[in-house]
């Protein structure tokens, strides 16, 4: 029972990290049909933002302040990178999703090398703020504060996205463009602006995920590659651009990983999860959540 509960917690925390990376992809993949392989590098940029704030700007004396500020700043950094990418390349590749995949992969190569040139090849270290040290134990399950914080961060991110999409005009525009791009354009919605904003937010979320990564793992130029494929699988299993689907898929994959790894080992669990996904797509080739869309023509 204890094992069950502790794996449940671990599964959820794995899921939260997956979801944090996948959220941004859900935006860019779902809205614009862009397979952004450089998304992982935006995560990396977010992580390095935290590092720079902590070491260069504030010094190690104000860890908590630096960490707190890194959340909005990493969002901004990721977002601006996304904007640049959208403006220089993505919008020229409209309607060629497979080509965006290849092009953004080239971008990700360059960003990795850029990070290596700026920050050096070795990993760098970010201190976790002191309030995230330690953890609590509930019903025999020890829950580190860092993991609770990440779960909390995902919940906040989801709430913010929900609020943005359903309560703010810009969010409504974004949904309108997803659901019927031509109709939105013909109704006066400046779709390129919406696309740019979408990419900004999606990439910004990657930056935020980068901040979370610093609490769990290493910060190096190749950080993004560790997360990108898993995140894409979340998006695919969830269904194109479906927020609800992505949440369910992330939780399912996180739990599957946690329990399978407990019974077997990390390598086998990973391979088994891939196999499960192939089987799953046999039954739901479009993912968990599917919506019909109609075009004008």
């Amino acid at each position, binding site marked *: 029972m204890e094992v069950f509960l502790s794996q449940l917690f671990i599964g959820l925390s794995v899921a939260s990290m997956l979801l944090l990376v996948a959220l941004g992809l859900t935006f860019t993949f779902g809205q614009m049909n862009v397979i952004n392989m450089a998304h992982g590098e935006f995560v990396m940029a977010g992580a390095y933002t935290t590092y720079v704030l902590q070491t260069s700007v504030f010094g190690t004396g104000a860890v908590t302040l630096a960490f707190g500020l890194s959340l909005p700043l990493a969002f901004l950094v990721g977002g601006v990178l996304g904007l640049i990418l959208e403006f220089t390349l993505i919008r020229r590749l409209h309607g060629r999703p497979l080509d965006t995949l290849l092009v953004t992969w080239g971008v990700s190569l360059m960003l990795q090398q850029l990070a290596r040139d700026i920050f050096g090849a070795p*990993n760098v*270290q970010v201190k976790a703020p002191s309030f995230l040290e330690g953890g609590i134990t509930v019903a025999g399950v020890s829950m580190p504060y860092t993991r609770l914080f990440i779960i909390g961060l995902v919940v906040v991110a989801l709430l913010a996205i929900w609020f943005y999409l359903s309560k703010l005009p810009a969010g409504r525009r974004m949904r309108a463009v997803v659901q019927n791009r031509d109709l939105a354009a013909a109704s006066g919605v400046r779709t390129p602006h919406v696309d740019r904003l979408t990419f900004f937010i999606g990439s910004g979320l990657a930056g935020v995920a980068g901040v979370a990564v610093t609490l769990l793992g290493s910060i190096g130029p*190749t950080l993004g590659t*560790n997360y990108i494929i898993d995140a894409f699988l979340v998006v695919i299993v969830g269904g194109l651009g479906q927020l609800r689907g992505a949440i369910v898929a992330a939780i399912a994959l996180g739990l599957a990983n946690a329990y399978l*790894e407990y019974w077997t080992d990390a390598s086998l669990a990973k391979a088994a999860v891939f196999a499960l996904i192939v089987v799953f797509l046999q039954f739901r080739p479009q993912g968990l959540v599917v919506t019909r869309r109609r075009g004008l023509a």
Partner: protein
Amino acid sequence: MTRLGVTRLLAILAAAILAAAAIAGCGSSSSESDAADTGASTSASADSGGDAIKVGILHSLSGTMAISEVTVRDSELLAIDEINRSGGVLGKQIEPVIEDGASDWPTFAEKAQKLISEDRVAATFGGWTSASRKAMLPVFESNRALLFYPVQYEGLEQSPYIFYSGATTNQQIIPGLEYLKEQGARSLFLVGSDYVFPRTANKEIKAWARANDVEILGEEYTPLGHTEYGTLISKLQEARPDAVFNTLNGDSNVAFFKQLKGAGVSARDMPVMSVSVAEEEVAGIGPENIAGHPVAWNYYQTTDTPENRRFVRAFKDRYGADRVTSDPMEAGYVQVHIWAKAVEKAGSTDPEKVKEAARGLTFDAPEGRVRVDDVNQHLYKTARIGVIEPDGQIREVWSSGRPIAPDPYLRTYDWASGL
């Protein structure tokens, strides 16, 4: 219309770059084959003709392993610089030819071949992972060329054309185990990355444990680059071993130690003995996450010898005060000197003569005196156990006191007879 024009222009430009690169490749290859020693090379040195002796430096400068290997390249270049400033070898300057293994084992093999047959290097210093060494091994053997390999490894190998400057099992892992046992550990949990070094090392550790009445409570491997250690840590917490023996590699250590600390497991509760975590890695993991855990090596930046003080100062002068030195870096530094000494002694860079000259050669290394084994071309090295301090340095807490003879096949250990 204008957009289309620009597009075409860019495309043509790209094609031109490519074509130029390809043609340049053809050109250089045919000319270099005829005059390998004078052909344009990637070397930084402008020396030409017969005044220089070329050596290969083959490490990953890109990809996942670049993190570690770049530091070894730096210390090897430092050693070359030192030798050149004191007159070089055989009166000639050493000219390093640097190649990128790109963290890709086949690339290591390709570049090794290139260094040997195109650059005609006298020797090559390179590699980090066992996989890269295994990939290069047949290349060096079939070309009868020399490779100096600077990293501790799993043993069970003895190539006539490889010099092993890092520790083999009985110079690092076994002392580490003995230390844990001395500290009262009666049960162990083995954690490693999923590749040859951890698996082979753990095989040996299990044999040792059987002979020493130490219980192995679990053995777990994670893929290279794995970053999610929640489940593994809960397995650890469940098994409650007296100590953990850690053969994780690279990035995974960062995730493992951060998450271990997050789970509230301290070095006092469950010390984790690492054999792949040196000063450089400690900086990436964050000293506060790993402080108090033991490591096993042959050298630390704090090792108290006059040679080391000189080495550390020279390194920091050259690369910056914030840089640290580590065991593989020291081994990289040492192996260049050993090669140079052997060449001087042999009076030639001919591999067979250098091998002959290297037998029994000694060198006062930063880690203390090392000696090349007569037979297996490994080094006699002093084993040292250290504990990581909160400032990121490693404090030596135990030492073998004298260099241990290398025994890659563990022939002198009864319990290892089945391996």
